[in-house]
């Protein structure tokens, strides 16, 4: 087999692989890109029902309620201008607290309640998720250097 043929064989295999990877990536992106919105975005935009997205802001002071089943938690995420109620059943991160930054992922239900299936809080005292920081900056309620 000549060098030219060998190279051609590998180029063909490489192209096929790249094509397959591109197809996989495109189809997976379609399904799995999760957009981030602040509560103000939610108030302003029309978001299709059933579409997964993330919402982030601060957990409103005094809004955290545990339902009688002991497992479901309801709280309000706010950017201090708009707010959205969130319902979540599952384990909360250790640093989930009122007045702190939080990101919830899930879908918006018909009643306007965000049903989350995952909640991210921060890992340490000083950390604020960058999306939340930006949402707060946009709503003009940003305080502090972080």
């Amino acid at each position: 087999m000549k060098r030219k043929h060998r190279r051609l064989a590998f180029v063909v295999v490489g192209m096929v692989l790249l094509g397959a990877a591109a197809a996989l990536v495109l189809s997976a992106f379609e399904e799995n890109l999760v957009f981030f919105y602040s509560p103000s975005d939610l108030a302003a935009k029309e978001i299709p029902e059933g579409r997964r997205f993330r919402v982030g802001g601060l957990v409103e002071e005094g809004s955290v309620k545990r339902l009688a089943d002991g497992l479901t938690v309801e709280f309000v995420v706010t950017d201090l201008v708009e707010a959205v109620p969130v319902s979540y059943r599952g384990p909360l991160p250790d640093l989930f607290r009122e007045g702190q930054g939080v990101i919830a992922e899930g879908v918006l239900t018909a009643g306007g309640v965000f049903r989350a299936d995952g909640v991210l809080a921060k890992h340490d005292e000083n950390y604020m998720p960058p999306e939340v920081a930006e949402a707060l900056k946009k709503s003009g309620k940003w305080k502090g250097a972080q």
Partner: protein
Amino acid sequence: MIAEIGHYALVLALFVALVQGTLPMIGAHRGDAAWMALARPASAAQLLFIAVAFGSLTYLYVVSDFSVANVAQNSNSAMPMLYKVSAVWGNHEGSLILWVLILAVFGLAVARLGGNIPPALRARALGVQAWIAIGFLSFSLFTSNPFLRLDPPPIDGRDLNPLLQDPGLAFHPPFLYLGYVGFSISFSFAVAALIEGRVDATWARWVRPWTLAAWSFLTLGIAMGSWWAYYELGWGGFWFWDPVENSSFMPWIAGTALLHSAIVSEKRDTLKSWTILLAIVTFSLSLLGTFLVRSGVLTSVHTFATDPERGIFILAFLVLVVGGSLTLYAVRAPLLKPGGLFAPISREGALVLNNLLLATACATVLLGTMYPLFLDALGGGKVSVGPQYFNATFGPLMLPLLALAAIGPLMPWKRADLAGVLSRLKLALAAAAAVTIGAWVVVTGASPWPPLGLGLAAWLFTGALVELGGRLKLFRAPIAESWRRARALPRSAYGMTLAHSGVAMVLAGIIASQAWQTERIQVMAPGDAVDVAGYTFTFRGVRELPGPNYSIQRGEFVVTRDGAAVARLYPEKRFYPVQQMPTTEAAIHTTWLADLYAVIDEAQADGAWSTRIYHNPLVPWIWLGAVVMTIGGGVSLSDRRLRVGAPVRRRAPAGATSQTA
């Protein structure tokens, strides 16, 4: 005083690095042996100064000198000694010092062990190493100095982040860094070879042990991190495709590809230009990982507080390193002479396919990790890429790779007979079929994919053993003959068998735990029982206990199976008063075929607690497999032919030795 000594030592190390980065390079260019030889004492001096700096910082932590800002922010007098020491690298500033310390250790190792490396190549490689050190030392000194004083000093420190006060995480960063920094050696050799314009099989022989060592450390480091996430985050999962996890995983994928392509470069003197490119890419991905973790540009469950200015510094450094080395590559790579010919169906062909698949998989992970950054930079909105994206792209690319991993090692160099190779794998095929059918019978009615995945793991595992058995002529020759062959076989052959069977174990663990995990979330009062996967978990309530620097709420579960006692589980909620932060400690009992995993979440009325209980089949195999892979790397590294200082011997013509590789 100690802090000032440390600071001063760091400045001196920077100046030594500047000398080491320039004079030996000029010497190599001019052919001046004395200037080239400067690299060796310089690398020793650099290690000395950085060790003094690191030692000073460790001392400040050990004696809890809170007049140093870094110590005050990350330590506390009540912390156990282990965490006072691990707090040195549990923060940004200190972890950079650890980075340069490991870099200096490796640099000295190149200088001392590489006695048979041509002086010019060694001088250049050490020069490139010095430039990496210059980058990190000035980063440390100008943006992240750990020796800054506080005035007035606080009475006590602010404590190490409680999540990091854990034995698993105490050693996770050093191993990751050993991996990252190890790849910097492959990078330095690649750049040095490009400057020389000459790459031969002996070059690959020097690069391979370093790559192998780095890869083994990184494997262990990633496994430790995922183990920590498994028991400390308390979600029962071990991998979240989180940007920070991905940033340690991408260098690993690229490093795995480099490990395999370096074999081809060494044995067959071909694929050299690709190997060089991989060495550059692997280290660039290590730097990118550092950038992603340290700059905090991505939202991650693992991100800690960060400073954007530092991000810009690392980004600039990254652009310089990646841009510079790729430009050099573009100019010099065409000069490299192509090596021997081979047919597509051959060991070389299989290794090329391995590299193509790994490179593609690495690219999909890179795309998924960086896409949110690009989209945001272009004003396209804030997005995150979910774990399903990675499962849907990375998974399908891994399947052919893992199937190939059993076939490739059986192929001879240059030209192979695929039908003959496959017929030797009859046993592996039978094992795969048996496992698939067996698993499908046990979990009737469910999706056929997980049993097929387990079959693939069995195929890979048995294939690795078949390959080894073939070399030993096991059951085909008298046992004495097999024993003689077993002793004569190079260690790297055992290393490969171990590494490949380790991959098979990891695969089995991932598939079984993803497909057949059982999760039960409920509120339990003391005395309540819940059945999970055939086990009965009886809740005995929660007690309050004191801890060294935290308070404990410890739950108790009695686990029985058919009335027989299995285990007692003690999951904890800990509360660290200094940072006002709770942590969750899962309790795990492993049967080595499955983990029984219990967590207590929230106190309810009347002593009841919300609890979560998981049954995770085969999960321990993931870490067991990673350890087996690491041992494989170590065994291979101990091979006489790969030993760094071993004399270079001329190889017999390649065709005659095709089975010893």
